[in-house]
């Protein structure tokens, strides 16, 4: 169960946030980022723990978490692939990029591959329209994608992800 708890490092970050701003509530969104950075998702248990550290009601963290779409509420694959399918990316084939990924990984949208490595979702514009099509994997942007490049990336992720310890989430 220890892996479900906030790390010492996260707790320190949260404590620092508590009195950093003119109003304590301003720490809420940064606190969600701390939780997300550690776990790769923002679940109720983690929010309860974080709420205690920043000394704010859990419900205030939860109402924010439910509003902001970039934080998954449940665990996702080690490599969380978010493909932009808004207009500029779609004009250069983003829909077929999604199909290609799903087929290659043999997974449905939003699900985790059996090896725990991948989740693919579609998202709205990520501000990378001039380098379409693109996808965000965890915290990184991958732009001007081609089939060849996607193949390379997936290969790389697989190699890294199956190493002991896995990638930084």
């Amino acid at each position, binding site marked *: 169960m220890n892996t479900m708890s906030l790390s010492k490092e996260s707790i320190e970050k949260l404590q620092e946030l508590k009195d950093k701003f003119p109003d304590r509530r301003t720490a809420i*969104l940064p606190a969600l980022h701390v939780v997300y950075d550690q776990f790769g998702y923002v679940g109720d248990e983690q929010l309860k723990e974080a709420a205690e550290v920043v000394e704010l009601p859990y419900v205030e963290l939860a109402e*924010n978490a439910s509003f902001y*779409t970039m934080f998954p509420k449940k665990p996702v694959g080690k490599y969380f692939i978010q493909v932009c399918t808004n*207009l500029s990316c779609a004009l250069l084939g983003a*829909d077929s990029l999604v199909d290609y990924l799903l087929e290659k990984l043999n997974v449905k949208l939003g699900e985790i591959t059996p090896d725990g490595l991948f989740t693919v979702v579609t998202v709205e514009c990520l501000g990378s329209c*001039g380098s379409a099509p693109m996808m965000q994997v965890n915290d990184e*942007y991958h732009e001007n994608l*081609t089939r060849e490049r996607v193949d390379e990336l997936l290969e790389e992720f697989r190699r890294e992800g199956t190493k002991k310890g896995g990638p930084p989430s």
Partner: protein
Amino acid sequence: MPEKILFKYIDEPGQDTIKVYMKNGGYTALPKVLKEYTPDQVTDIVKESGLRGRGGAGFPAGVKWSFVPKDSPKPKYLLINADESEPGTFKDRQLLERDPHQLIEGSIIAAYAVQAHTGFIYIRGEFGYGAKQLLRALSEAEEKNFLGKNILGSGYDLTIHLHRGGGAYICGEETALMESIEGRRGLSRVRPPYPAIVGLYGCPTVINNVETLSNVPHIINKGAEWFASMGTRKSTGTKIFSLSGQVKRPGNYELPMGISLRELIYEYGGGIFEDRELKAVIPGGSSTPILTPDKLDVKLDFESVVEAGSMLGSAGVIVMDETTCMVNVAWRLTRFYQHESCGKCTPCREGTYWMLKILERIENGKGESGDVELLLDICNYIEGYTVCPLGDAAVPAVRSTIEHFQEEYDYHIRNKTCMVKGKPVFK
């Protein structure tokens, strides 16, 4: 090539570090301001330059600053809007990743002009690299005492926090952005009161876009007259145009205001992808009405684009070629607005939902006669009936595609299939 202001050093390696930024003349405007000008003088210079907000609305920046009450006993705040999320727009990202000090210097000067001692850069949550760049740049600026207490011995104090968003388009709207910083769900506030009077934490607040503030050090260094000599009479300076879609050379282009759409697409953008025919252009981000090829000679400045029937907005220019289905475009953009509506105002929350349902059924070959009229009717009940501009922004994609391409809607409904053949494929 026309003179560049913001992108002059953007490709120089190391421009993101304080060392190279200073070698290239950075942080010379700030000491000058602190030594030679009163806050009001700074505001006057920016007013005279004619600099207008680059976030989409085009409101004169100096005038905005002058609305902050000087006699208020409350603290004042500066908010730097880096929540760039308007589909088709990617200029602020480049500015803050590659030349963060230009933004920070402009922000410090703006904060001084309105006498704010606390600022927040609100950066969209997905810009992880941009956030890292800004954090590093902020600490570099602190080390040199461009930020912090008693900046360069002037007695002026300023702290700037970096605040990351959580993936909500609405938080780029100024009042929703303030709610978000205050730790609430990003629902827009009713205006008035305007942020200059009642903003963040109920205090006087100025909020400016990244590109707007990045211009400020240059205006101080080279003068209001120099800035106003570029562009057109009412839209001064340069503008970064984000060119995307089916064009040969997409990317950000810094050009004088008033350049023609034709020049941007054909000269700078190299023309249409695979030499196809141009069909339509969105000139100012997804919230602005589409323009058809007969409007290619429109000058890209705030006034001229309005005359042509659209808006300059964020200058996110999205190019669509002959293979594009306009019903699909309307569906895709409506899906975006439906997803991003904060849900506060019924016309926007319900209107975008119903427009999406109708567009989906037309797309899926289940459209009914009367659907087009119904869509236009919903547009009329959204526009002007919401607290913030998101409702208004959801209308143009639907209304302008119907206005210019109703035959495609009719064909879809009648034949249960698309009039345009071929879908974009990534290779």
